[in-house]
């Protein structure tokens, strides 16, 4: 509850800060204070201090899984603010509003990680989505940004409609919005529940950009201002995943056998389409968009397996995917040329940036001693433990191998190709933070113990 209330309040504060202060520095400082406060209050709740007691009539339930996820999401956002603060100011005039919208998204994510009623789920998804439509179109004078925003809005509204229909059908069948009530049953699938479940699955698959509902993703990610793409592709996507696994794990866990094959097929399609299409991209930004689809495929493993390892793995994967991606975007956003050629010879001119980018890319590719490896390890283990989906595991590793090709293209460009690297504005703070992030990626890759300890303490 702490995180939900504070993030909503701070969103409002940020909005007003823009009206009262024309100084961008104040706004930025205020956002940092806000995110730090948010992180602290969320931690407080994790350790049992509730600042607000609201009777939600059982519509929200705060468990350690959700709160831990909040901590990861808020922490990543803090890093994101620190890295990208200056770049957000370049997008347009309404900097304070951008911050406000991001705080609102965080509010949505906090609800998504704690809902126990379908109504709350719907609310969470909407609170997350609507600010994103605005952020996508934040670059008002850019045609691509406008197009992306409109596209996202129309498609998003459509999928929200589908979700509502699903919710209605489930309500009709079970007579309640409560997850606990829905979960009751003898494990048989009535047509009405089946239809509702399918609609919910499709709409959530749309939100996490799983194939074949992914068509909006490349255009939206490509068209949106790069700073916001970074946020959407990482923290937001992870938040929607949490909602996905919470709903299907808690409400439809009993029926897992009935929908496992379907979600496995969606996973396979997501992996194949994401990876194969990424191979043919010429722009790094677009490649990262497809790579985010491909990585979503791996996150879907947790839904396919639906066991303890999968849930822990999803938390781990969120971190292992978000930090490197935010890092790469933070470098990309300062470049003028987004093509692979734009990275040519970067190692010579910016050895530190090239080195950290390499570490981030190695992590995304899942090379041992980086966080990405442990993430993939968890997901593959979860699926193998489940035992029914060995074919999916094989597809998964083939796709992981394909992903090496396009991630390494960037490394090749930076290190092995000659080129006059572009001017790149960077400060020592920016660099230092990126180095810290790279160190963190390696640290939790070699010593996942530390993070796992946190997870296990809360799960047991």
């Amino acid at each position: 509850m702490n995180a939900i209330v504070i993030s909503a309040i701070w969103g409002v504060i940020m909005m007003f800060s823009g009206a009262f202060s024309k100084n961008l520095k104040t706004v930025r400082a205020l956002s940092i204070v806000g995110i730090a406060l948010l992180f602290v209050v969320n931690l407080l709740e994790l350790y049992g201090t509730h600042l607000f007691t609201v009777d939600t009539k059982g519509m929200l339930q705060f468990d350690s899984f959700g709160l831990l996820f909040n901590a990861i999401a808020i922490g990543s956002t803090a890093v994101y603010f620190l890295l990208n603060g200056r770049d957000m100011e370049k997008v347009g005039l309404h900097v304070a509003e951008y911050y406000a919208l991001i705080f609102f998204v965080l509010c949505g994510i906090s609800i998504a990680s704690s809902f126990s009623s379908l109504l709350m789920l719907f609310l969470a998804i909407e609170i997350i989505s609507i600010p994103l439509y605005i952020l996508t179109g934040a670059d008002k004078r850019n045609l691509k940004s406008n197009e992306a925003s409109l596209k996202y809005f129309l498609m998003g509204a459509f999928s929200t409609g589908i979700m509502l229909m699903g919710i209605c059908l489930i309500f009709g069948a079970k007579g309640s919005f409560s997850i606990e009530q829905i979960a009751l049953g003898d494990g048989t699938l009535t047509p009405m529940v089946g239809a509702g479940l399918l609609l919910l699955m499709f709409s959530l698959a749309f939100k996490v950009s799983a194939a074949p509902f992914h068509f909006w993703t490349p255009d939206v990610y490509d068209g949106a201002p790069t700073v916001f793409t970074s946020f959407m592709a990482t923290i937001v996507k992870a938040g929607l995943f949490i909602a996905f696994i919470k709903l299907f794990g808690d409400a439809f866990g009993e029926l897992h056998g009935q929908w496992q094959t379907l979600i496995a097929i969606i996973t396979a399609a997501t992996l194949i389409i994401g990876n194969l299409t990424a191979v043919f991209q010429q722009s790094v930004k677009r490649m990262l968009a497809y790579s985010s689809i491909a990585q979503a495929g791996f996150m879907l493993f947790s839904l396919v397996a639906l066991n303890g390892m999968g849930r822990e793995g999803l938390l781990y994967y969120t971190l292992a995917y978000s930090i490197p991606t935010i890092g790469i975007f933070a470098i990309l956003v300062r470049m003028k040329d987004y093509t692979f050629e734009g990275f040519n010879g970067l190692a010579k001119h910016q050895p530190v940036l090239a080195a950290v980018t390499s570490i981030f890319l190695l992590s995304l590719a899942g090379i041992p001693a980086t966080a990405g490896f442990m993430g993939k390890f968890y997901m593959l283990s979860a699926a193998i433990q489940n035992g029914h989906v060995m074919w999916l595991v094989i597809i998964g590793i083939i796709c992981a191998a394909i992903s090496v090709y396009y991630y390494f293209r960037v490394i090749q460009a930076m290190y092995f190709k000659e080129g006059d690297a572009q001017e790149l504005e960077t400060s020592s703070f920016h660099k230092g933070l990126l180095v810290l992030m790279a160190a963190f990626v390696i640290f939790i890759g070699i010593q996942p113990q530390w993070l796992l300890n946190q997870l296990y303490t809360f799960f047991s």
Partner: protein
Amino acid sequence: MIPVLLIVIPLLSGLATFLIKQEKGAKTWSLLASLITLVVSVIGITMVKDKAALSANLEWLPMLGSSFSVTLDGMGQILCLLTAVAFPMIFLATWNASYKNAKSFYALMLLGQAGLMGAFLAHDALLFYFFWELALIPAYFLCSQWGGERRIAVTMKFFIYTFVGSLFMLIGIIYVYFHAGQNFSIESFYSAALSPKEQNWLFWLFFVAFAIKMPIFPLHTWQPDTYEQSPTAVTMVLSGVMVKMGLLGVIRWLAPVLPMATWQNGDTVGLLCVIGMIYASILAIQQDDLKRLIAYSSIAHVGLMCLAIFVTSEKGMQGVMIQMFNHGINVIGLWIVVELIERQFGTRKISELGGLAQKAPALAILLVVVSLANVALPLTNAFIGEFLLFTGVFTSTVSKMGPVFTAVAGLSIILSAVYTLNMIQRVFFGNTNQLTASAHDIRSNEKIVLGILVVAILVVGVYPKPFLELTQGTVEAIMSKMITKHPI
């Protein structure tokens, strides 16, 4: 303590090398570091009698049932010795070469050494996988940065090839893990409860990874290109040392873990090995490029070793142990000669060279000894190894095709004599041409390195006993876990 040192010394010294500014400093520093590693490795073999000092078990991921468990058993000793010997040799032999951005080159070399050591020492499946992959990353950067013209594409092929294999192995490892009480330690892997059917498909998951690394026909296509395009110093590491990761993988992580499947598929794999040997030998005869010639010759030699593992005989296994070391030494010797020739004349084409013996007698003598070892002539180290290998294959009680394999594989020895002697004749004898007329002999540091190798070749060839004794324990332990009789 010793095994930890063997990993940590190259790792830390490698990281430190990134900070050294001058080329000379980086060179000296890395040579020094590799010599220290060598000393530690030798101490581990000769001085330490206390078993506890030869293994270490540190806490790593207790929740996943994995620990940082490293042990120097007989096979580990011999392979670590090979790794420890190889690196100072390589640094000395390439002392006169100059690399652009030298500090990164030497740093990556040392990091590669750390990865290799780890893979040879790990007695925990997850740890093994970690090091298995980590050894690959420096190799990727080394080949792509300092290699030949087509280096980027070729190295990418190499990387993706091995990465696919590794991922297959990862699935295998995770599957066995769930059937071994959720524990990654080697003991629980050896006692994993797996049905013959499961063993059978798991076998191929593991085997593909190892077969790509060795490489075994038909998964060898990355190898000649990569060897050709890599800087020679890296080729030495790849073919001299890294290839042994594949063999070690089969001996430590495949045959004892899945004995039933190994027994079942032994002849199939054997057939692939034999085909590969003949195929590679024939291709070697036709090569004009020295590097490609040695690359194909290496496929043939490794094929024989792999064959000997899968016929499951004690003699053969002994042979593999000693031959892993011998092949490493011999092939590094050959690569050094190639490196010296290429640096002096700027070409590796056999057809463009000739009459070198007149101008560079020392090089010629040393090369002839190394080449004879490559043909496995008596008195050289490879003779001991190949003799044991062939005895093992011939007397195998498991393989139904032992004599056939022996006969066909024996052919490859004759073929190896054809291409090796042909190469010596055309490069070192005959008349000099324009290019080689002004040749000079090798420098003293190069003489020393090749001299040491030649001495090693002869010493092991005449007195292999200490080596055989070193690995006796490992061989017996492995053999006791494999199926050695043909159940009727």
